[in-house]
């Protein structure tokens, strides 16, 4: 019997393009194992979380609901007066918040994907990108659960069902992609310096106000300029437009932002694969 040829691995200093080719090859060849492992990681973390929690999914629904209530209250109490772009304000806020939750969850899932595993990453050889895949699965689940909130909102406020509403999950995926691309891009440096993740959290607080979540895109001014530069803006506007049947969408910008971020995410994944040995080296024991 002829034994199958053994896989030969050469571990030596890589440089330049060679290391990129190597990274792409190992991402491709390692995908089945990495995907299986990502699923196991996801199951493991989710099972463990749920076993330690009485309320389970409630914790996924609570944050977007809380945000919505705050803004609805501020609006009702005339503390903040915002326009609603033609749909009931609570529906306006909750659609924005759900998309924001997907984006925010995705960016945070990327930035925190390495942390809990740093102990055994430096000891055990496995396709490390599986940690990232598992983070994406987790963010997608959270986003899907949170998006359920939009349904009662539509019913309560008598928003008629539009066929474009079936496209809302596309906007949800786009939000995940935008978040994942930014998170993945920053992941290597965030793994070395905790400052990065803290800084991101701070920036995201401003980001909330630079995205048309709780108030519509201003007609003019500096805020409008900043908001149109934000890749999440077309995603939120288009997604909300699809769900509520308003014509507020920015389809071209939506496609541009989504495709651009998807390319950035793919590149960042390759970057991550290239620099993983350097990260492990600095993670210590």
């Amino acid at each position, binding site marked *: 019997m002829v034994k199958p040829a053994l896989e030969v*691995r050469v*571990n030596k200093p890589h440089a*330049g393009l060679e290391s990129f080719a190597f990274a792409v090859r190992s991402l491709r060849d390692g995908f089945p194992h990495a995907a299986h492992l990502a699923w196991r990681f996801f199951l*493991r973390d989710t099972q463990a979380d749920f076993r330690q929690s009485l309320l389970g999914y409630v914790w996924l629904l609570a944050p977007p609901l809380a945000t919505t209530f705050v803004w609805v209250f501020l609006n009702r109490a005339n503390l903040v007066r915002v326009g609603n772009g033609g749909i009931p304000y609570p529906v306006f806020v909750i659609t924005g918040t759900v998309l924001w939750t997907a984006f925010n969850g995705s960016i945070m899932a990327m930035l925190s994907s390495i942390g809990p595993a740093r102990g055994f990453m430096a000891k055990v*050889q*496995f396709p490390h990108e599986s940690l990232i895949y598992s983070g994406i699965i987790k963010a997608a689940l959270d986003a899907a659960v949170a998006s359920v909130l939009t349904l009662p909102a539509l019913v309560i406020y008598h928003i008629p069902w539009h066929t474009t509403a079936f496209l809302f999950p596309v906007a949800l995926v786009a939000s995940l992609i935008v978040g994942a691309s930014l998170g993945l891009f920053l992941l290597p440096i965030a793994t070395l310096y905790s400052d990065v993740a803290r800084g991101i959290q701070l920036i995201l607080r401003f980001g909330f106000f630079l995205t048309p979540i709780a108030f519509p895109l201003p007609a003019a001014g500096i805020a409008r300029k900043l908001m149109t530069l934000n890749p999440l803006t077309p995603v939120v506007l288009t997604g909300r437009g699809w769900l509520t049947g308003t014509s507020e969408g920015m389809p071209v910008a939506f496609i541009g932002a989504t495709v651009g971020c998807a390319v950035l995410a793919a590149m960042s994944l390759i970057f991550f694969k290239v620099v993983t040995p350097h*990260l492990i080296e*600095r993670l210590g*024991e």
Partner: protein
Amino acid sequence: MNDETLVEAENVSKKFSRSLKHSLWYGTLDLASALNPFSGEGDGGTEREGRRPSLRSQEFWAVDDISFELKRGDCLGLVGHNGAGKSTLLKLVNGLITPDAGSITTRGKVAALIELDAGFNPILTGRENIYNRGALLGLSRDDIRSRFDRIVEFAEIGDFLDAPVQNYSSGMRVRLGFAVAVQVQPDVLIIDEVLAVGDIAFRFKCLNAIGELMSTAAVIFVSHTMPQIFRICNQILVMDHGSTAFAGKDVSAGVATYQSLFRESPESVTGSGEITVRSLELDTEPSQAETDGCVRLDHGAPLSVSAVLEAVPAIHRARVQFLFWNAEMLPVLEIMADELKGRIIEFTDCMSEIHVTLPHLELNAGKYSISIIAASENYSRIYCRHDNAGYVQVDAGSPSGAHVLTIGDWSNGKVVVRS
């Protein structure tokens, strides 16, 4: 098929930084240079055109120009003191980190018995963790299912199978980890100090399981327990501060080198100070020059110890004995006189000289440090205790882990078979 080379390390070097701040900054620079597809010859980067990169401030060679080659069935004992670079070398072999110079080629599946409970989630049950850990090691769900019973039986966790792993004892965790890990059929197997835990019975079970894997793999075995190295390895690599102190097939010579690296502690003197040690001389037969207060001899050779002591005028008599410590700082031998007490010595003009000879020093291989203890006749007062006054290094090519190897007077009896 037994002559295929499975691991080939050629002039492997890896540098590390002492300070975390520098380490993170260099890490950032390395990220940038790794991501630059046109990166040229950077002084901080890695090897270019066979040239080893220079060290940056606060850096040192954690692995310094190491080469070795392993075929299927070979077992390399990797020894060295803590911080000698063993773990770093293993990470390089495992492909977790990239060398800064040189290369390591591995053929086939590489598996490491390191951190056996890595990836266990404490909240989940043993059963769930078996599947997770198996996936981490590259086993498919079906692989694990078909080996599940064997894993559970090997791990001896019994009723705890469906209890959360946080309720396991540390021994049970390691057993479970080991049981899953040995299900992988590797071509290259890395074993790092995993046998330092668990009870004796399980340790032997592990050794036997490793023995089975070894016959079909090339093994790198890290241990501080020399008898295990003797038992398992047919090659040895002794590392000291990142570089090769000894490499070759002569395992006992390698172990002797390792033992000679045993760091000598500074001499220390305690006690009342009424007696002080002026000199200590060690010798064997045939006579040998001491080097740095250390005499080297073979197991069973004679050892003679001479000491000159000085006392304050009020002290005329004292009891003296010599105590031998092994590398783990355990007392293993004490030279006594009658009634298993110290030898009584008399001081004239405050000085006294004493000799003692052991016809056969029966200590096992290793380096031993000697303490001189001088006390009052009834031991109510310790005049002087002088630690690390001298060193003896014994060479013995035995796989025994005992402290003392003695040759008995054996004879054969007759077995009477009753009809």
